[in-house]
């Protein structure tokens, strides 16, 4: 596990890295992985038994020239009881382990309120922190070592929040708020994706979870609450004007400005994020300008239209957005 972790943190800044159900980074994921080992062991024993019996039958009882009709064995209640009862007992054992793991992975919540509310949209993620009031998009920040309750909701169709290294997945269903426990133990970047088919860009609805030391997380949360400073550089000032003029503000929110819409991702602190487009491409000036100029070329079918901006206009808006810290 420790070696995997070293690799993980080394790759933490990358867009994509290896994930696995077995690469458990939370007690919840570990409990599932342990259950999976037992399930696989049981499956292997049953599979090998069946296969061995079939192969033995194929070899031993293949018809040979001169064979007459064999003895007509109509069945044996004792043997048949054996292969009814033994599998039933094995499954009963698995059922007990299942019930135990369920309590570790997603125990009943009681009156506890979620620490963060995940709102799935076609095709991006909104994260709301009710206690601090922080609202951000596409990158979920969490403190390490804390047992967090995630509220999982949807703004449109059914989605599903799934980060294999962190444990169970949970559907985001409109009108049916769900919850999910996650206790990240080690800092790092964990990747996941929407796991319920949700339309054209289901494939590009990546999840990026950034687990930080608690004090670093507190700083991040505090910084998020400050409205970014107004732009100073000439290009950024032009970009801010274009952002209002070119209808960007009809969909996006930037705290401290006239842009208050909640249709698309909140852009208040966009410059702090590693990626844009829901973990689609790295967040830098070139990529952002390309995204603003023609989002459909990067994420075909997404809800952000091509606004027919000139290259210079897209660049100015990108400069402005990259100043939002």
């Amino acid at each position: 596990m420790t070696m995997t972790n070293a690799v993980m943190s080394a790759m933490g800044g990358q867009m994509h890295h290896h994930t696995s159900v077995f690469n458990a980074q939370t007690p919840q994921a570990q409990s599932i992985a342990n259950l999976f080992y037992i399930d696989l062991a049981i499956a292997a024993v049953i599979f090998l038994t069946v296969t061995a019996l079939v192969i033995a039958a194929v070899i031993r009882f293949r018809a040979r020239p001169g064979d007459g009709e064999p003895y007509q064995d109509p069945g044996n209640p004792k043997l048949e009881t054996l292969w009814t009862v033994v599998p039933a007992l094995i499954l009963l054992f698995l059922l007990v382990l299942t019930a135990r793991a369920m309590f570790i992975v997603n125990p009943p919540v009681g009156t506890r309120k979620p620490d963060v509310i995940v709102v799935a949209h076609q095709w991006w993620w909104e994260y709301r922190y009710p206690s601090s009031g922080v609202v951000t998009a596409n990158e979920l920040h969490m403190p390490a070592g804390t047992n967090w309750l995630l509220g999982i909701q949807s703004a449109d169709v059914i989605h599903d929040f799934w980060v294999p290294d962190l444990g169970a997945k949970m559907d985001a269903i409109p009108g049916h708020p769900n919850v999910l426990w996650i206790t990240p133990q080690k800092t790092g970047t964990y990747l996941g994706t929407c796991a319920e088919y949700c339309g054209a860009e289901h494939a590009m609805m990546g999840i990026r979870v950034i687990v930080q030391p608690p004090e670093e997380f507190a700083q991040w949360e505090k910084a998020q609450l400050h409205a970014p400073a107004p732009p100073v550089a000439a290009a950024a000032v032009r970009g801010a004007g274009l952002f209002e003029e070119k209808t960007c503000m009809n969909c996006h929110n930037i705290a401290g400005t006239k842009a208050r819409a909640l249709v698309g991702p909140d852009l208040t602190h966009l410059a702090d994020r590693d990626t844009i487009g829901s973990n689609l491409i790295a967040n830098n000036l070139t990529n952002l300008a390309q995204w603003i100029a023609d989002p459909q070329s990067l994420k075909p079918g997404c809800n952000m239209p091509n606004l027919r901006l000139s290259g210079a206009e897209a660049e100015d808006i990108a400069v402005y957005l990259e100043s939002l810290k």
Partner: protein
Amino acid sequence: MSEASQSHATITSLADIKEYRGLLSWVASIDHKQIGIMYVVSAYFFLFVGVVEALIMRLQLIRPNNHLISPETYDQLFTMHGTTMVFLMAMPLLFGFSVYLVPLMIGARDMAFPRLNALGFWLYFFGALMLYFSFMAGGAPAAGWFGYAPLTEKSYSFDHGIDYWALSLLVMGAGSVATGINLIVTVLTLRAPGMTLRRLPLFVWMVFINGILVVLAMPPLNAALVMILADRLLNTHFFTPATGGSALMWQNYFWMFGHPEVYILVLPAFGVISEVIPVFSRKVMYGYGLMATSTVAIAFLSFGVWLHHMFATGLGFAILYLFAASSMLIAVPTGIKIFNWIATMWGGTIRFSTPMLFATAFLIQFTIGGLSGITFAAIPLDWQLTDSYFVVAHIHYVLLGGTVFAMIAGTYYWFPKVTGRMMSERVGRWNFWLLVIGFNGTFAVLHILGVLGMPRRVYTYPDVPYFGLLHAISTYFAFVLVLGLLVFVANMIWSLLRGKVAGDDPWDAWTLEWATSSPPPPENFERVRTIHGRRPLWDLKHAAVAPAATKEGR
């Protein structure tokens, strides 16, 4: 037994039957054999269509960030692939075998309601055409084969694809209920004298139970389809949460149909295996009684497991426990069948003709599908693996490695009866090995992709370690699989034209359909004598040798 073989000695191919000449004799037919053939031919045609759709998807997935086809096209393809394989291929294939064989196996002249039988086929046929017409009418459906609301609502799927999808499933669903009723009544009322329910061939047992499943399982689907159509066309609010509807209600209705549907697709395949293995092992079916009762148990339990498709939707623990227990319990009767089939082979003298080869592969591949199925019943594992490629692997091991392999075994087994010609055994061996290698190569690696976090239904994926490699392996083996299917089709066509004349009973089998000519005359039998056991032809052939054998099922 039957004197049919004497009076129809000249029948050695379908062309010898004057009642089957001309297109009109088929279109206007109420003969269960012609209807059965039309079902099977249509089903194999749609198998071809579904395979082409799958192959385009596999080419799109051959490497990361591929842009061979657009996301919209990919979404239409996987929706049409799933819908085609379940409703246009598997169900009609099983119905085709059922309506062709049941009357013959129970010594009847035809189905109980021959006109209803024809109606069932034509509802399916035109329903299928309606579904494919959507491509020309502004776009095929693109919400997956289980079409989760509210993605299927007008606000999220605004072209007419979903309307075509829902209407065509409704039309085919009505046909399926008709055929289900027909099969139940046929088995209950038209059995030959002496053929008690305890002497019914196991294929007929499974088809009978299947008829009950169809009749009980289709209504929830049909009701849900009416509701989604009303939402889309009449602005009702069944599945729109914002205006008081429930998104989860669709899932409950759909899977209340959908899980019994899985067994609808599997029971007739079990029936085929239960005929093929005894005949080619030269042994009576081991534990006939338990085979029949375990089928009833599966049918009963299949109505109490549907929530295992919804374990990740956030349900209460009490209901989760109940459905985890029932989902594991249903594995027991399925396991019984596997062991009883092996016990039938044990001590036999097994002839490995092509049907038996496919039946043997079925045993192992279906076991793998069953074991991955149990994994989903262990709820926390479902919370990780559902909606991943692990599910894609699982469903294909059950329905392709299981059902389709069994039906290919059945095709090789009954082709001589239906056409009067043997299929080539040499080509059959090529067919078998290409399919076994192609199938397992394509789908085994998909389990690993699911464990590595690959979600299903994505048109492309990022360049993550192993993803590209595993998908490339899967795609290359898919070509082997397709080659195997082409060899299968070629073998059928070649054998139909040039195959060796089969005779009445080429496999030395023992159910009633082998007592008449190949192909059977329109009236099936001139006369059916009283049945004294489960294997009427065996009794006839061994009357002097083993009188004890005739006592079974008394």
